[in-house]
């Protein structure tokens, strides 16, 4: 029997190498592309405006896109098996809605807080409150119930979205633009200390998710069978939920609500590399980073100097591609049938 149908050491090595190469290529391209043609010699020498553009504008932006993309994709890759639902994405836990609502409230009515530091802080606090609420509301017999969690998360997000529309209608018209931009999601240039702080949050979240890889593989078997194999599926769901809340909170705080990364990237990689989470999770970290860096580069390059919201780019590229994958997968499954 050949090894094509299971995860082998060589497939894991080559899969990760491929993802890393794509991520690196996207990052290099993103650093070079922009409204100003960079003189790499000047950057290396550390002189002139090119040096400033590289270190103060391009690199922090690419770093933020990479971190957010990595976190969202890893979270989606883990939530899908944890909640036993292929439609699960980081948005499904309801945390993004709570974070966005808190940020929009600050933008609309708290001029003292509507600063680059204040809004992310509000968003992160909103994420925490939303996570606590959704988690409590999703407990059945003291365990996080997957179906209840999805319903509570979706309803909570819709509720937050309608409140945001209400705030938008009542707020001063001059605020509308920044509120809409927040809802669409966008990668901006953040100061290095903020990136370092967010980076450590993403790192903690991603490590928590990786630790659940084996447990996530078994979660499709059902809680009882997973338990008979020595794994606590309820605890796994709770850990994935907490890690996702951390990742989503940090990313909404810095970039607003960016959809599709956490849904599309894991599914694409599952088609290419298989469902085994011991490869899928690290591959999603790299693939998510590549996808969001590429999307952000397109967003600032296509109509330069006008910038498009990156959320629109991820949705426009991810949506049709996802449909294509679904159709192709449907055919493959039909052919595989008895």
């Amino acid at each position, binding site marked *: 029997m050949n090894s094509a*149908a299971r995860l082998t050491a060589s497939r894991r090595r080559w899969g990760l190498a491929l993802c890393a190469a794509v991520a690196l290529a996207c990052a290099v391209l993103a650093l070079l592309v922009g409204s100003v043609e960079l003189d790499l010699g000047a950057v290396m020498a550390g002189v002139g405006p090119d040096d400033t553009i590289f270190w103060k504008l391009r690199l922090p932006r690419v770093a933020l896109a990479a971190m957010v993309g990595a976190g969202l994709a890893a979270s989606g890759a883990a939530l899908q098996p944890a909640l036993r639902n292929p439609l699960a994405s980081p948005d499904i836990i309801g945390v993004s809605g709570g974070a966005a609502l808190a940020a929009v409230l600050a933008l609309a009515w708290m001029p003292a807080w509507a600063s680059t530091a204040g809004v992310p802080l509000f968003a992160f606090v909103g994420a925490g409150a939303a996570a606590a609420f959704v988690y409590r509301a999703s407990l059945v017999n003291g365990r996080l119930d997957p179906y209840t969690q999805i319903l509570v998360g979706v309803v909570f997000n819709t509720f937050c979205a309608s409140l945001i529309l209400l705030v938008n209608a009542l707020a001063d018209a001059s605020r509308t633009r920044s509120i809409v931009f927040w809802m669409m999601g966008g990668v901006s240039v953040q100061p290095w200390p903020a990136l370092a702080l967010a980076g450590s949050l993403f790192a903690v979240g991603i490590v928590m998710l990786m630790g659940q890889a084996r447990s996530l593989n078994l979660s499709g078997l059902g809680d009882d069978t997973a338990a*008979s194999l*020595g794994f606590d599926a309820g605890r796994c769901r709770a850990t994935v939920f907490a890690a996702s809340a951390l990742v989503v909170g940090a990313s909404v705080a810095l970039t607003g609500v960016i959809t599709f990364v956490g849904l599309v990237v894991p599914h694409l990689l599952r088609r290419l590399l298989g*469902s085994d989470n011991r490869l899928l999770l690290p591959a999603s970290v790299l693939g998510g980073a590549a996808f969001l860096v590429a999307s952000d580069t397109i967003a600032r390059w296509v109509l330069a100097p006008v910038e498009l919201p990156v959320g629109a780019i991820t949705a426009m590229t991810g949506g049709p591609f996802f449909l294509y994958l679904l159709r192709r997968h449907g055919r493959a499954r039909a052919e595989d049938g008895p």
Partner: protein
Amino acid sequence: MSHASDRSRAPLTLAGVNYAYPSGGDGGGRVYELSLQVERGGMLAVVGPNGSGKTTLLRLAAGLLLPDSGQVSCCGSRTSVASRAELARKVALVGQQPALGFPYSVIEVVLMGRAPYLEGLSLESEEDLAAAHDAMRATGTDHLGQRVFDSLSSGERQRVSVARALAQQPELLLLDEPGAFLDIREQTRLYDLLEELNTSRGTAVVSVLHDLNLAALYFPTVALLNKGRLHAVGAPSEVLSYATVREVFRTDVYVAINDLTGQLNVLPIKGGAGNNE
């Protein structure tokens, strides 16, 4: 394990076990004072009406539930003391496996049975792979290795689930209604397979089932539960008598030895339940 006597090494021992679900309002699934032993190489069918505690017994045996009082021991390990990982190397559980929802191949599913033997993000070794292939050969699923699990028929899925359980290399195999939703041919294949594994490998088999005819056909010992208590345990012909089945299931039945096969038949009778209100 120190000084494990033969008795305590038995695949499954329940001694005076009581259990009630914390939120079990109507008391469904409760069990009282269950005492039962399955010997090495034993094969036991657990039967009884809905809500009589069959699945509770199985979950207690697997260590998924811990008794409120009394003791459950599997192969020398008390479930209330042993770690989940330790139990997972001795006891395997097969339920009705639903679709996984994600495209795992059959070999990947069988290798999931090796999870209790792995660490962290490490991959399966040659030894794990050998155990999986051995389990697939034993269950007649080795030709399915490359297929997507969710695309299999329900009969194939159940046999792959048994292979996954065998890959755990258990001393005790627990099954919850493994033949539900299977047609008569697939049911026969499945129970033939369990009997074969029991004979050739000495794996003890405990299965919950509703079909009294299959219980009588394949299992030398039958435990009959009624309202959470062990009503009777013994050979099918003793336990599944007309009077006992009528009393416990509260329905009229026809019980006889089939002249052609020599097997015990328990057949329903039209309107039989009405006569026993």
